[in-house]
Protein backbone atom coordinates (compact mmCIF):
# COMPACT_ATOMS: atom_id res chain seq x y z
CA UNK A 1 0.00 0.00 0.00
CA UNK A 2 2.92 2.33 0.68
CA UNK A 3 4.19 1.78 -2.86
CA UNK A 4 0.72 2.55 -4.23
CA UNK A 5 0.52 5.67 -2.05
CA UNK A 6 3.92 6.95 -3.17
CA UNK A 7 3.17 6.20 -6.80
CA UNK A 8 -0.16 8.01 -6.72
CA UNK A 9 1.29 10.94 -4.82
CA UNK A 10 4.01 11.29 -7.43
CA UNK A 11 1.30 11.59 -10.08
CA UNK A 12 -0.67 14.09 -8.00
CA UNK A 13 2.20 16.19 -6.75
CA UNK A 14 2.46 18.64 -9.65
CA UNK A 15 2.47 22.42 -9.56
CA UNK A 16 -0.51 22.66 -11.90
CA UNK A 17 -2.60 20.34 -9.73
CA UNK A 18 -1.72 22.18 -6.52
CA UNK A 19 -2.32 25.58 -8.11
CA UNK A 20 -5.80 24.66 -9.30
CA UNK A 21 -6.74 22.78 -6.11
CA UNK A 22 -5.54 25.54 -3.77
CA UNK A 23 -7.17 28.25 -5.89
CA UNK A 24 -10.53 26.44 -5.92
CA UNK A 25 -10.30 25.74 -2.19
CA UNK A 26 -9.42 29.33 -1.28
CA UNK A 27 -12.02 30.89 -3.59
CA UNK A 28 -14.72 28.56 -2.38
CA UNK A 29 -13.88 28.83 1.32
CA UNK A 30 -13.46 32.60 1.29
CA UNK A 31 -16.71 33.13 -0.60
CA UNK A 32 -18.73 30.64 1.43
CA UNK A 33 -17.37 31.82 4.79
CA UNK A 34 -17.88 35.48 3.97
CA UNK A 35 -21.43 34.77 2.86
CA UNK A 36 -22.19 32.71 5.96
CA UNK A 37 -20.86 35.29 8.37
CA UNK A 38 -22.48 38.16 6.50
CA UNK A 39 -25.90 36.46 6.50
CA UNK A 40 -25.77 35.11 10.04
CA UNK A 41 -28.70 36.11 12.24
CA UNK A 42 -29.41 35.93 15.95
CA UNK A 43 -30.95 32.58 16.84
CA UNK A 44 -33.99 34.30 18.32
CA UNK A 45 -35.03 35.71 14.95
CA UNK A 46 -34.35 32.54 12.98
CA UNK A 47 -36.80 30.24 11.31
CA UNK A 48 -36.25 26.82 9.77
CA UNK A 49 -33.85 27.00 6.82
CA UNK A 50 -32.37 30.36 7.76
CA UNK A 51 -28.64 31.08 7.88
CA UNK A 52 -26.10 30.16 10.50
CA UNK A 53 -26.93 31.36 14.05
CA UNK A 54 -24.88 34.44 14.93
CA UNK A 55 -24.20 33.09 18.42
CA UNK A 56 -21.97 30.35 17.00
CA UNK A 57 -19.32 32.91 16.19
CA UNK A 58 -19.11 34.39 19.60
CA UNK A 59 -16.25 33.21 21.78
CA UNK A 60 -13.44 30.72 21.13
CA UNK A 61 -13.68 28.66 17.93
CA UNK A 62 -15.97 31.16 16.29
CA UNK A 63 -13.70 31.66 13.29
CA UNK A 64 -13.32 28.01 12.35
CA UNK A 65 -16.97 27.24 13.12
CA UNK A 66 -17.90 29.40 10.13
CA UNK A 67 -15.38 27.59 7.93
CA UNK A 68 -16.65 24.22 9.07
CA UNK A 69 -20.18 25.19 8.14
CA UNK A 70 -19.07 26.50 4.77
CA UNK A 71 -17.43 23.16 3.97
CA UNK A 72 -20.83 21.48 4.13
CA UNK A 73 -21.72 23.17 0.86
CA UNK A 74 -18.51 22.01 -0.80
CA UNK A 75 -19.35 18.32 -0.74
CA UNK A 76 -19.97 18.35 -4.45
CA UNK A 77 -16.37 19.37 -5.13
CA UNK A 78 -14.99 16.58 -3.02
CA UNK A 79 -17.38 14.01 -4.44
CA UNK A 80 -16.45 15.09 -7.96
CA UNK A 81 -12.74 14.98 -7.19
CA UNK A 82 -12.74 11.42 -5.87
CA UNK A 83 -15.29 10.09 -8.32
CA UNK A 84 -13.48 11.51 -11.33
CA UNK A 85 -9.97 10.61 -10.17
CA UNK A 86 -10.84 6.98 -9.40
CA UNK A 87 -13.37 6.71 -12.25
CA UNK A 88 -10.79 7.92 -14.75
CA UNK A 89 -8.48 5.16 -13.59
CA UNK A 90 -10.96 2.72 -15.09
CA UNK A 91 -12.09 4.66 -18.16
CA UNK A 92 -8.53 5.55 -19.17
CA UNK A 93 -7.18 2.08 -18.39
CA UNK A 94 -4.54 3.37 -15.98
CA UNK A 95 -5.84 1.08 -13.25
CA UNK A 96 -5.19 -1.84 -15.61
CA UNK A 97 -1.68 -0.57 -16.31
CA UNK A 98 -1.02 -0.16 -12.59
CA UNK A 99 -2.25 -3.67 -11.83
CA UNK A 100 0.34 -5.12 -14.18
CA UNK A 101 3.00 -3.72 -11.85
CA UNK A 102 1.12 -4.07 -8.57
CA UNK A 103 -1.28 -7.03 -8.72
CA UNK A 104 -2.62 -6.56 -5.18
CA UNK A 105 -5.83 -4.77 -6.15
CA UNK A 106 -7.01 -3.84 -2.69
CA UNK A 107 -3.66 -2.40 -1.74
CA UNK A 108 -3.56 -0.46 -5.02
CA UNK A 109 -6.95 1.20 -4.59
CA UNK A 110 -6.31 1.87 -0.88
CA UNK A 111 -2.96 3.47 -1.68
CA UNK A 112 -4.50 5.66 -4.36
CA UNK A 113 -7.25 6.76 -2.01
CA UNK A 114 -4.76 7.46 0.76
CA UNK A 115 -2.71 9.69 -1.54
CA UNK A 116 -5.84 11.57 -2.54
CA UNK A 117 -6.72 11.95 1.13
CA UNK A 118 -3.25 13.35 1.84
CA UNK A 119 -3.91 16.06 -0.74
CA UNK A 120 -7.39 16.59 0.71
CA UNK A 121 -6.06 17.04 4.25
CA UNK A 122 -3.62 19.67 2.98
CA UNK A 123 -6.44 21.47 1.22
CA UNK A 124 -8.59 21.32 4.36
CA UNK A 125 -5.80 23.09 6.24
CA UNK A 126 -5.59 25.70 3.48
CA UNK A 127 -9.35 26.14 3.61
CA UNK A 128 -9.37 26.35 7.37
CA UNK A 129 -6.73 29.08 7.43
CA UNK A 130 -8.15 31.12 4.54
CA UNK A 131 -11.69 30.77 5.93
CA UNK A 132 -10.66 31.82 9.42
CA UNK A 133 -8.92 34.90 8.09
CA UNK A 134 -11.99 35.73 6.02
CA UNK A 135 -14.27 35.32 9.03
CA UNK A 136 -12.03 37.61 11.07
CA UNK A 137 -12.24 40.24 8.36
CA UNK A 138 -16.01 40.03 7.89
CA UNK A 139 -16.99 39.60 11.53
CA UNK A 140 -16.64 43.28 12.60
CA UNK A 141 -19.28 44.21 10.02
CA UNK A 142 -21.69 41.92 11.87
CA UNK A 143 -20.73 43.31 15.26
CA UNK A 144 -19.13 40.01 16.20
CA UNK A 145 -16.45 40.23 18.81
CA UNK A 146 -13.37 38.31 17.61
CA UNK A 147 -11.35 38.80 20.78
CA UNK A 148 -11.62 35.16 21.83
CA UNK A 149 -10.97 33.72 18.38
CA UNK A 150 -7.20 33.43 18.53
CA UNK A 151 -6.46 32.39 22.13
CA UNK A 152 -5.27 29.06 23.50
CA UNK A 153 -8.84 27.92 24.11
CA UNK A 154 -9.68 28.66 20.50
CA UNK A 155 -6.90 26.37 19.38
CA UNK A 156 -8.63 23.38 20.96
CA UNK A 157 -11.90 24.26 19.23
CA UNK A 158 -10.03 24.67 15.97
CA UNK A 159 -8.61 21.15 16.30
CA UNK A 160 -12.11 19.81 16.88
CA UNK A 161 -13.39 21.63 13.80
CA UNK A 162 -10.43 20.31 11.84
CA UNK A 163 -11.21 16.76 12.95
CA UNK A 164 -14.85 17.26 11.92
CA UNK A 165 -13.73 18.41 8.48
CA UNK A 166 -11.39 15.44 8.04
CA UNK A 167 -14.16 13.06 9.05
CA UNK A 168 -16.52 14.77 6.64
CA UNK A 169 -13.92 14.62 3.85
CA UNK A 170 -13.19 10.95 4.51
CA UNK A 171 -16.90 10.17 4.22
CA UNK A 172 -17.22 11.89 0.85
CA UNK A 173 -13.96 10.31 -0.32
CA UNK A 174 -15.32 6.86 0.48
CA UNK A 175 -18.63 7.58 -1.25
CA UNK A 176 -16.89 8.96 -4.36
CA UNK A 177 -14.44 6.04 -4.51
CA UNK A 178 -17.19 3.47 -4.06
CA UNK A 179 -19.32 5.00 -6.80
CA UNK A 180 -16.36 5.05 -9.16
CA UNK A 181 -15.36 1.45 -8.42
CA UNK A 182 -18.92 0.19 -8.80
CA UNK A 183 -19.78 2.07 -11.97
CA UNK A 184 -16.29 2.38 -13.51
CA UNK A 185 -17.44 5.44 -15.43
CA UNK A 186 -16.83 8.98 -14.25
CA UNK A 187 -19.88 10.63 -15.86
CA UNK A 188 -22.30 7.95 -14.69
CA UNK A 189 -20.84 7.76 -11.18
CA UNK A 190 -20.79 11.52 -10.83
CA UNK A 191 -24.31 11.83 -12.25
CA UNK A 192 -25.65 9.23 -9.83
CA UNK A 193 -23.87 10.91 -6.91
CA UNK A 194 -25.09 14.39 -7.72
CA UNK A 195 -28.63 13.13 -8.29
CA UNK A 196 -28.81 11.34 -4.97
CA UNK A 197 -26.93 13.77 -2.76
CA UNK A 198 -28.43 16.81 -4.44
CA UNK A 199 -32.15 16.77 -5.19
CA UNK A 200 -33.08 13.41 -3.68
CA UNK A 201 -31.53 13.92 -0.25
CA UNK A 202 -32.22 17.64 -0.02
CA UNK A 203 -35.60 17.97 -1.67
CA UNK A 204 -37.26 14.65 -0.87
CA UNK A 205 -35.66 14.51 2.57
CA UNK A 206 -36.38 18.16 3.39
CA UNK A 207 -37.66 18.40 6.93
CA UNK A 208 -37.98 14.62 7.19
CA UNK A 209 -36.62 13.23 10.42
CA UNK A 210 -35.62 9.90 8.84
CA UNK A 211 -33.59 11.75 6.24
CA UNK A 212 -31.56 13.55 8.90
CA UNK A 213 -31.09 10.29 10.75
CA UNK A 214 -30.25 7.93 7.90
CA UNK A 215 -29.30 9.73 4.70
CA UNK A 216 -25.49 9.69 4.42
CA UNK A 217 -25.27 13.18 2.95
CA UNK A 218 -27.33 14.63 5.79
CA UNK A 219 -25.26 12.76 8.36
CA UNK A 220 -22.04 14.11 6.87
CA UNK A 221 -23.48 17.61 6.98
CA UNK A 222 -24.29 17.08 10.65
CA UNK A 223 -20.62 16.32 11.26
CA UNK A 224 -19.42 19.72 10.01
CA UNK A 225 -22.54 21.68 10.92
CA UNK A 226 -23.34 20.20 14.32
CA UNK A 227 -25.57 23.05 15.45
CA UNK A 228 -27.75 23.28 12.37
CA UNK A 229 -31.49 22.80 12.86
CA UNK A 230 -32.65 19.13 12.67
CA UNK A 231 -29.08 17.82 12.72
CA UNK A 232 -28.56 14.61 14.68
CA UNK A 233 -25.87 14.60 17.35
CA UNK A 234 -22.27 14.17 16.30
CA UNK A 235 -22.09 10.84 18.14
CA UNK A 236 -25.14 9.46 16.35
CA UNK A 237 -23.91 10.72 13.00
CA UNK A 238 -20.42 9.29 13.55
CA UNK A 239 -21.71 5.88 14.62
CA UNK A 240 -24.10 5.59 11.68
CA UNK A 241 -21.46 6.83 9.24
CA UNK A 242 -18.93 4.34 10.63
CA UNK A 243 -21.38 1.53 9.86
CA UNK A 244 -21.96 2.93 6.37
CA UNK A 245 -18.20 3.25 5.91
CA UNK A 246 -17.70 -0.39 6.78
CA UNK A 247 -20.30 -1.38 4.20
CA UNK A 248 -18.64 0.79 1.56
CA UNK A 249 -15.14 -0.53 2.28
CA UNK A 250 -16.41 -4.11 2.13
CA UNK A 251 -18.25 -3.43 -1.11
CA UNK A 252 -15.17 -1.89 -2.71
CA UNK A 253 -12.99 -4.76 -1.49
CA UNK A 254 -15.31 -7.41 -2.94
CA UNK A 255 -15.82 -5.66 -6.28
CA UNK A 256 -12.19 -4.75 -6.77
CA UNK A 257 -11.01 -8.25 -5.93
CA UNK A 258 -13.52 -10.34 -7.84
CA UNK A 259 -14.35 -8.35 -10.92
CA UNK A 260 -12.49 -8.78 -14.20
CA UNK A 261 -10.49 -5.78 -15.33
CA UNK A 262 -11.58 -5.43 -18.92
CA UNK A 263 -11.12 -1.72 -19.54
Amino acid at each position, binding site marked *: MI*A*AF*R*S*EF*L*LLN*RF*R*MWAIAVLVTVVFTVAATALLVATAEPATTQGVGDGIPLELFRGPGGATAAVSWSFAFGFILLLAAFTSRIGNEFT*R*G*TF*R*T*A*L*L*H*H*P*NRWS*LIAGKMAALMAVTVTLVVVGLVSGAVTAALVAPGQDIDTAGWFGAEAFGDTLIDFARMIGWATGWALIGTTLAVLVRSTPIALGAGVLWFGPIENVIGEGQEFAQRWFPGQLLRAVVSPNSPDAVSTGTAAATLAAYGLVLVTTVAIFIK*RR*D*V*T*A
Partner: protein
Amino acid sequence: METLHLDTRLEPNVTPAVDSVGTHPNRGGVSVDAVVVSGLTKRYGKRAAVDNLSFTVPAGSVAGLIGPNGAGKTTLMAMLLGLVRPTEGEGTVLGQSVDRPSGYLGRVGALIEGPAFHPAVSGIDNLRALAMLGGHDQAEIPELLQLVGLDGRGEDRYGSYSMGMKQRLGIAASLLGDPELVILDEPTNGLDPVGMQDIRRLIAEIAAGGRTVIVSSHLLSELEQVCDWLIVIDHGGLVYLGSPEQLTGTEALVMRTAESGDLPILHSMVVSTHLPVDTTDDGIVVTLNDDVDPAALAAEINRRAHAAGIVLSELHHRRSDLEARYLNLISNGDSSADETTKTNAIPKGQSS
Protein backbone atom coordinates in the same frame (compact mmCIF):
# COMPACT_ATOMS: atom_id res chain seq x y z
CA MET B 1 18.91 -43.14 -64.67
CA GLU B 2 21.43 -41.26 -62.63
CA THR B 3 20.27 -40.15 -59.19
CA LEU B 4 20.35 -36.42 -58.48
CA HIS B 5 22.81 -35.92 -55.66
CA LEU B 6 21.09 -33.36 -53.58
CA ASP B 7 20.47 -33.83 -49.89
CA THR B 8 16.75 -33.72 -50.11
CA ARG B 9 15.72 -36.30 -47.56
CA LEU B 10 12.48 -35.27 -46.05
CA GLU B 11 10.23 -37.18 -43.75
CA PRO B 12 6.63 -36.69 -44.76
CA ASN B 13 4.32 -35.16 -42.14
CA VAL B 14 7.13 -33.35 -40.46
CA THR B 15 6.69 -32.80 -36.73
CA PRO B 16 7.41 -29.44 -35.17
CA ALA B 17 10.79 -28.94 -33.63
CA VAL B 18 9.51 -28.81 -30.08
CA ASP B 19 10.49 -31.49 -27.64
CA SER B 20 8.42 -32.70 -24.74
CA VAL B 21 9.56 -29.93 -22.45
CA GLY B 22 9.18 -27.26 -25.04
CA THR B 23 12.76 -26.36 -25.89
CA HIS B 24 12.58 -24.03 -28.81
CA PRO B 25 14.59 -24.90 -31.88
CA ASN B 26 15.87 -21.41 -32.46
CA ARG B 27 16.92 -20.67 -28.93
CA GLY B 28 17.98 -24.01 -27.60
CA GLY B 29 19.21 -24.66 -24.13
CA VAL B 30 16.16 -23.33 -22.31
CA SER B 31 14.18 -26.17 -20.86
CA VAL B 32 11.13 -24.53 -19.32
CA ASP B 33 8.03 -23.31 -21.08
CA ALA B 34 7.30 -19.68 -20.39
CA VAL B 35 3.57 -20.20 -20.74
CA VAL B 36 1.57 -23.41 -20.50
CA VAL B 37 -2.17 -23.26 -20.97
CA SER B 38 -4.52 -26.19 -20.73
CA GLY B 39 -8.23 -26.06 -21.51
CA LEU B 40 -8.35 -22.36 -20.74
CA THR B 41 -11.84 -20.98 -21.23
CA LYS B 42 -13.49 -17.63 -20.62
CA ARG B 43 -17.21 -17.28 -21.06
CA TYR B 44 -19.28 -14.12 -20.92
CA GLY B 45 -22.78 -15.50 -20.51
CA LYS B 46 -23.20 -18.09 -23.23
CA ARG B 47 -20.49 -16.62 -25.43
CA ALA B 48 -17.06 -18.13 -25.14
CA ALA B 49 -14.41 -15.48 -25.73
CA VAL B 50 -11.72 -18.12 -25.24
CA ASP B 51 -12.76 -21.69 -25.75
CA ASN B 52 -10.83 -24.62 -24.31
CA LEU B 53 -7.47 -23.32 -25.42
CA SER B 54 -4.33 -25.39 -24.87
CA PHE B 55 -0.83 -24.47 -25.94
CA THR B 56 2.67 -23.77 -24.77
CA VAL B 57 5.05 -20.95 -25.46
CA PRO B 58 8.67 -22.08 -25.29
CA ALA B 59 10.92 -19.94 -23.15
CA GLY B 60 13.08 -17.62 -25.20
CA SER B 61 10.80 -17.62 -28.21
CA VAL B 62 9.03 -14.74 -29.88
CA ALA B 63 5.49 -16.02 -30.11
CA GLY B 64 2.94 -14.35 -32.32
CA LEU B 65 -0.63 -14.57 -31.15
CA ILE B 66 -2.57 -14.10 -34.35
CA GLY B 67 -6.26 -13.95 -35.02
CA PRO B 68 -8.91 -11.68 -36.47
CA ASN B 69 -10.55 -8.98 -34.36
CA GLY B 70 -12.68 -10.60 -31.68
CA ALA B 71 -10.80 -13.89 -31.86
CA GLY B 72 -10.05 -13.79 -28.13
CA LYS B 73 -6.43 -12.64 -28.19
CA THR B 74 -6.81 -9.83 -25.66
CA THR B 75 -8.98 -11.95 -23.35
CA LEU B 76 -6.37 -14.68 -23.45
CA MET B 77 -3.60 -12.23 -22.62
CA ALA B 78 -5.71 -10.67 -19.86
CA MET B 79 -6.10 -14.12 -18.29
CA LEU B 80 -2.36 -14.68 -18.44
CA LEU B 81 -1.87 -11.32 -16.71
CA GLY B 82 -4.40 -11.94 -13.96
CA LEU B 83 -6.75 -9.22 -15.14
CA VAL B 84 -9.47 -11.63 -16.16
CA ARG B 85 -10.41 -14.75 -14.24
CA PRO B 86 -10.67 -17.93 -16.37
CA THR B 87 -14.04 -19.67 -16.33
CA GLU B 88 -12.37 -23.07 -16.76
CA GLY B 89 -8.99 -24.56 -17.38
CA GLU B 90 -5.61 -23.85 -15.98
CA GLY B 91 -2.33 -22.35 -16.95
CA THR B 92 1.06 -21.38 -15.74
CA VAL B 93 3.18 -18.37 -16.50
CA LEU B 94 6.89 -18.75 -15.73
CA GLY B 95 5.99 -21.84 -13.76
CA GLN B 96 3.39 -20.12 -11.54
CA SER B 97 -0.36 -20.70 -11.71
CA VAL B 98 -2.47 -17.99 -13.37
CA ASP B 99 -4.68 -18.19 -10.27
CA ARG B 100 -1.97 -16.32 -8.37
CA PRO B 101 -0.64 -13.62 -10.70
CA SER B 102 1.22 -11.92 -7.87
CA GLY B 103 3.58 -14.89 -8.00
CA TYR B 104 4.88 -14.06 -11.45
CA LEU B 105 3.80 -10.54 -12.52
CA GLY B 106 7.00 -9.11 -11.08
CA ARG B 107 8.84 -11.00 -13.82
CA VAL B 108 6.35 -10.17 -16.56
CA GLY B 109 6.02 -6.94 -18.51
CA ALA B 110 2.95 -6.20 -20.56
CA LEU B 111 1.16 -3.76 -22.76
CA ILE B 112 -2.45 -4.78 -23.10
CA GLU B 113 -5.44 -3.09 -24.75
CA GLY B 114 -3.24 -0.22 -25.78
CA PRO B 115 -1.09 2.18 -23.78
CA ALA B 116 -2.85 3.77 -20.79
CA PHE B 117 -1.12 6.53 -18.84
CA HIS B 118 -2.03 9.76 -17.08
CA PRO B 119 -2.33 12.41 -19.81
CA ALA B 120 -1.39 15.42 -17.67
CA VAL B 121 1.79 13.78 -16.41
CA SER B 122 5.08 13.49 -18.30
CA GLY B 123 6.10 10.22 -19.86
CA ILE B 124 9.02 9.85 -17.48
CA ASP B 125 6.89 10.50 -14.39
CA ASN B 126 4.35 7.96 -15.62
CA LEU B 127 7.17 5.43 -15.79
CA ARG B 128 8.47 6.51 -12.37
CA ALA B 129 5.05 5.96 -10.86
CA LEU B 130 4.88 2.46 -12.35
CA ALA B 131 8.43 1.70 -11.22
CA MET B 132 7.45 2.71 -7.68
CA LEU B 133 4.41 0.47 -7.84
CA GLY B 134 6.40 -2.51 -8.99
CA GLY B 135 9.42 -1.85 -6.81
CA HIS B 136 11.63 -1.46 -9.88
CA ASP B 137 14.82 0.55 -10.13
CA GLN B 138 14.01 4.01 -11.50
CA ALA B 139 17.57 4.40 -12.74
CA GLU B 140 16.75 2.22 -15.73
CA ILE B 141 14.06 4.61 -17.04
CA PRO B 142 16.34 6.87 -19.14
CA GLU B 143 17.84 3.79 -20.78
CA LEU B 144 14.39 2.40 -21.52
CA LEU B 145 13.28 5.70 -23.04
CA GLN B 146 16.35 5.60 -25.25
CA LEU B 147 15.64 2.01 -26.25
CA VAL B 148 12.13 2.84 -27.41
CA GLY B 149 13.22 6.04 -29.12
CA LEU B 150 11.71 8.52 -26.68
CA ASP B 151 14.90 10.03 -25.35
CA GLY B 152 14.48 13.79 -25.27
CA ARG B 153 10.69 13.52 -25.07
CA GLY B 154 10.36 11.93 -21.65
CA GLU B 155 9.65 15.25 -19.93
CA ASP B 156 6.75 16.03 -22.27
CA ARG B 157 3.20 15.46 -21.11
CA TYR B 158 1.87 12.06 -22.14
CA GLY B 159 -1.24 13.76 -23.52
CA SER B 160 0.92 15.54 -26.09
CA TYR B 161 2.37 12.30 -27.47
CA SER B 162 1.51 10.94 -30.91
CA MET B 163 0.00 7.48 -31.19
CA GLY B 164 3.38 6.00 -32.02
CA MET B 165 5.02 7.66 -29.02
CA LYS B 166 2.27 6.39 -26.74
CA GLN B 167 2.85 2.86 -27.99
CA ARG B 168 6.57 3.26 -27.40
CA LEU B 169 6.00 4.47 -23.87
CA GLY B 170 3.74 1.48 -23.32
CA ILE B 171 6.50 -0.82 -24.47
CA ALA B 172 9.00 1.00 -22.23
CA ALA B 173 6.64 0.44 -19.29
CA SER B 174 6.44 -3.23 -20.14
CA LEU B 175 10.24 -3.47 -19.89
CA LEU B 176 10.47 -1.98 -16.39
CA GLY B 177 12.21 -4.39 -14.05
CA ASP B 178 13.88 -6.32 -16.89
CA PRO B 179 11.08 -8.92 -17.20
CA GLU B 180 11.64 -12.48 -18.37
CA LEU B 181 8.40 -12.48 -20.32
CA VAL B 182 7.01 -9.55 -22.29
CA ILE B 183 3.41 -9.60 -23.50
CA LEU B 184 2.46 -7.00 -26.09
CA ASP B 185 -1.11 -6.70 -27.27
CA GLU B 186 -1.29 -5.27 -30.79
CA PRO B 187 1.64 -2.87 -30.28
CA THR B 188 1.47 -1.64 -33.88
CA ASN B 189 -2.17 -0.58 -33.68
CA GLY B 190 -2.77 2.80 -35.24
CA LEU B 191 0.78 3.19 -36.51
CA ASP B 192 1.93 4.12 -39.99
CA PRO B 193 4.14 1.68 -41.90
CA VAL B 194 7.34 3.32 -40.65
CA GLY B 195 6.09 3.19 -37.07
CA MET B 196 5.13 -0.47 -37.53
CA GLN B 197 8.59 -1.24 -38.81
CA ASP B 198 10.15 0.52 -35.83
CA ILE B 199 8.05 -1.49 -33.41
CA ARG B 200 8.98 -4.72 -35.17
CA ARG B 201 12.64 -3.78 -34.84
CA LEU B 202 12.07 -3.00 -31.19
CA ILE B 203 10.44 -6.39 -30.59
CA ALA B 204 13.45 -8.06 -32.18
CA GLU B 205 15.74 -6.06 -29.86
CA ILE B 206 13.71 -7.05 -26.82
CA ALA B 207 13.84 -10.68 -27.82
CA ALA B 208 17.55 -10.51 -28.52
CA GLY B 209 18.12 -10.19 -24.79
CA GLY B 210 16.84 -13.76 -24.34
CA ARG B 211 13.40 -12.74 -23.16
CA THR B 212 10.28 -14.58 -24.14
CA VAL B 213 7.96 -12.30 -26.07
CA ILE B 214 4.30 -12.86 -26.85
CA VAL B 215 2.97 -10.33 -29.30
CA SER B 216 -0.51 -10.25 -30.74
CA SER B 217 -1.84 -8.90 -33.97
CA HIS B 218 -4.71 -9.47 -36.34
CA LEU B 219 -2.28 -9.21 -39.23
CA LEU B 220 0.08 -12.09 -39.78
CA SER B 221 2.21 -9.97 -42.08
CA GLU B 222 3.11 -7.77 -39.10
CA LEU B 223 4.55 -10.63 -37.14
CA GLU B 224 5.90 -13.18 -39.57
CA GLN B 225 9.21 -11.34 -39.72
CA VAL B 226 9.81 -11.28 -35.97
CA CYS B 227 8.11 -14.41 -34.65
CA ASP B 228 9.55 -17.87 -34.48
CA TRP B 229 6.42 -19.36 -32.92
CA LEU B 230 2.83 -18.80 -33.94
CA ILE B 231 -0.42 -19.28 -32.07
CA VAL B 232 -3.34 -18.71 -34.39
CA ILE B 233 -6.74 -18.46 -32.76
CA ASP B 234 -10.18 -17.79 -34.13
CA HIS B 235 -13.53 -17.64 -32.34
CA GLY B 236 -11.67 -18.33 -29.10
CA GLY B 237 -10.24 -21.63 -30.31
CA LEU B 238 -6.81 -22.74 -31.41
CA VAL B 239 -6.41 -23.00 -35.15
CA TYR B 240 -2.69 -23.41 -35.47
CA LEU B 241 0.32 -23.75 -33.19
CA GLY B 242 3.84 -24.05 -34.42
CA SER B 243 6.57 -22.37 -36.35
CA PRO B 244 5.81 -19.91 -39.15
CA GLU B 245 7.56 -22.28 -41.52
CA GLN B 246 5.06 -24.99 -40.70
CA LEU B 247 2.19 -22.65 -41.37
CA THR B 248 3.72 -21.48 -44.57
CA GLY B 249 3.22 -24.83 -46.17
CA THR B 250 5.54 -26.13 -48.78
CA GLU B 251 7.52 -24.53 -51.52
CA ALA B 252 7.71 -26.32 -54.85
CA LEU B 253 9.30 -26.46 -58.26
CA VAL B 254 6.71 -26.51 -61.03
CA MET B 255 7.72 -27.69 -64.50
CA ARG B 256 6.03 -28.36 -67.81
CA THR B 257 7.32 -29.91 -71.02
CA ALA B 258 6.79 -28.60 -74.55
CA GLU B 259 5.86 -32.12 -75.64
CA SER B 260 3.40 -33.98 -73.46
CA GLY B 261 5.06 -37.25 -74.37
CA ASP B 262 8.20 -36.13 -72.52
CA LEU B 263 6.37 -35.83 -69.22
CA PRO B 264 6.91 -39.47 -68.07
CA ILE B 265 10.63 -39.20 -68.85
CA LEU B 266 10.89 -35.99 -66.88
CA HIS B 267 8.93 -37.58 -64.05
CA SER B 268 11.33 -40.50 -63.77
CA MET B 269 14.16 -38.02 -63.77
CA VAL B 270 12.87 -35.92 -60.87
CA VAL B 271 11.74 -38.89 -58.80
CA SER B 272 15.41 -39.61 -58.22
CA THR B 273 15.58 -36.50 -56.02
CA HIS B 274 13.71 -38.44 -53.33
CA LEU B 275 11.46 -35.44 -52.99
CA PRO B 276 7.69 -35.79 -53.16
CA VAL B 277 6.65 -35.53 -56.80
CA ASP B 278 3.13 -34.96 -58.05
CA THR B 279 2.11 -35.18 -61.68
CA THR B 280 -0.69 -33.04 -63.03
CA ASP B 281 -2.31 -33.16 -66.48
CA ASP B 282 0.34 -31.02 -68.04
CA GLY B 283 3.16 -30.76 -65.56
CA ILE B 284 5.12 -31.97 -62.57
CA VAL B 285 5.31 -30.45 -59.10
CA VAL B 286 8.30 -31.24 -56.87
CA THR B 287 7.72 -30.37 -53.22
CA LEU B 288 10.79 -28.82 -51.65
CA ASN B 289 12.11 -28.86 -48.15
CA ASP B 290 14.48 -26.62 -46.19
CA ASP B 291 17.54 -28.59 -47.22
CA VAL B 292 17.06 -27.96 -50.90
CA ASP B 293 18.38 -24.98 -52.78
CA PRO B 294 15.56 -24.37 -55.27
CA ALA B 295 17.81 -22.59 -57.76
CA ALA B 296 20.40 -25.36 -57.74
CA LEU B 297 17.77 -28.06 -58.15
CA ALA B 298 16.05 -26.16 -60.97
CA ALA B 299 19.36 -25.71 -62.77
CA GLU B 300 20.18 -29.38 -62.40
CA ILE B 301 16.77 -30.47 -63.70
CA ASN B 302 17.03 -28.05 -66.59
CA ARG B 303 20.51 -29.27 -67.49
CA ARG B 304 19.49 -32.93 -67.45
CA ALA B 305 16.25 -32.33 -69.32
CA HIS B 306 18.22 -30.50 -71.98
CA ALA B 307 20.74 -33.36 -72.12
CA ALA B 308 17.85 -35.79 -72.56
CA GLY B 309 16.44 -33.66 -75.38
CA ILE B 310 13.43 -32.53 -73.37
CA VAL B 311 12.31 -28.96 -73.90
CA LEU B 312 10.89 -27.41 -70.76
CA SER B 313 8.18 -24.87 -71.49
CA GLU B 314 8.04 -23.84 -67.85
CA LEU B 315 10.25 -24.23 -64.80
CA HIS B 316 9.60 -22.01 -61.84
CA HIS B 317 9.95 -21.86 -58.06
CA ARG B 318 6.52 -21.55 -56.41
CA ARG B 319 7.00 -19.75 -53.15
CA SER B 320 4.82 -20.30 -50.11
CA ASP B 321 2.06 -17.84 -49.36
CA LEU B 322 1.86 -17.40 -45.58
CA GLU B 323 -0.89 -14.82 -45.60
CA ALA B 324 -3.09 -16.93 -47.87
CA ARG B 325 -2.56 -19.92 -45.64
CA TYR B 326 -3.45 -17.90 -42.55
CA LEU B 327 -6.55 -16.43 -44.16
CA ASN B 328 -7.60 -19.88 -45.22
CA LEU B 329 -7.20 -21.10 -41.64
CA ILE B 330 -9.22 -18.37 -40.02
CA SER B 331 -11.87 -17.98 -42.67
CA ASN B 332 -12.72 -21.66 -42.58
CA GLY B 333 -12.05 -22.31 -38.93
CA ASP B 334 -10.64 -25.55 -37.64
CA SER B 335 -12.00 -27.58 -40.49
CA SER B 336 -9.74 -25.90 -42.98
CA ALA B 337 -6.57 -26.61 -41.10
CA ASP B 338 -5.44 -29.86 -42.57
CA GLU B 339 -4.67 -32.53 -40.05
CA THR B 340 -0.96 -32.40 -40.76
CA THR B 341 -0.84 -28.70 -39.94
CA LYS B 342 -2.97 -28.95 -36.82
CA THR B 343 -1.87 -32.09 -35.10
CA ASN B 344 1.76 -31.83 -35.98
CA ALA B 345 1.94 -28.29 -34.80
CA ILE B 346 0.54 -28.93 -31.37
CA PRO B 347 3.07 -30.28 -28.89
CA LYS B 348 2.73 -33.79 -27.57
CA GLY B 349 0.10 -34.43 -25.01
CA GLN B 350 -1.91 -31.35 -25.89
CA SER B 351 -4.82 -30.69 -28.10
CA SER B 352 -6.92 -27.80 -29.16
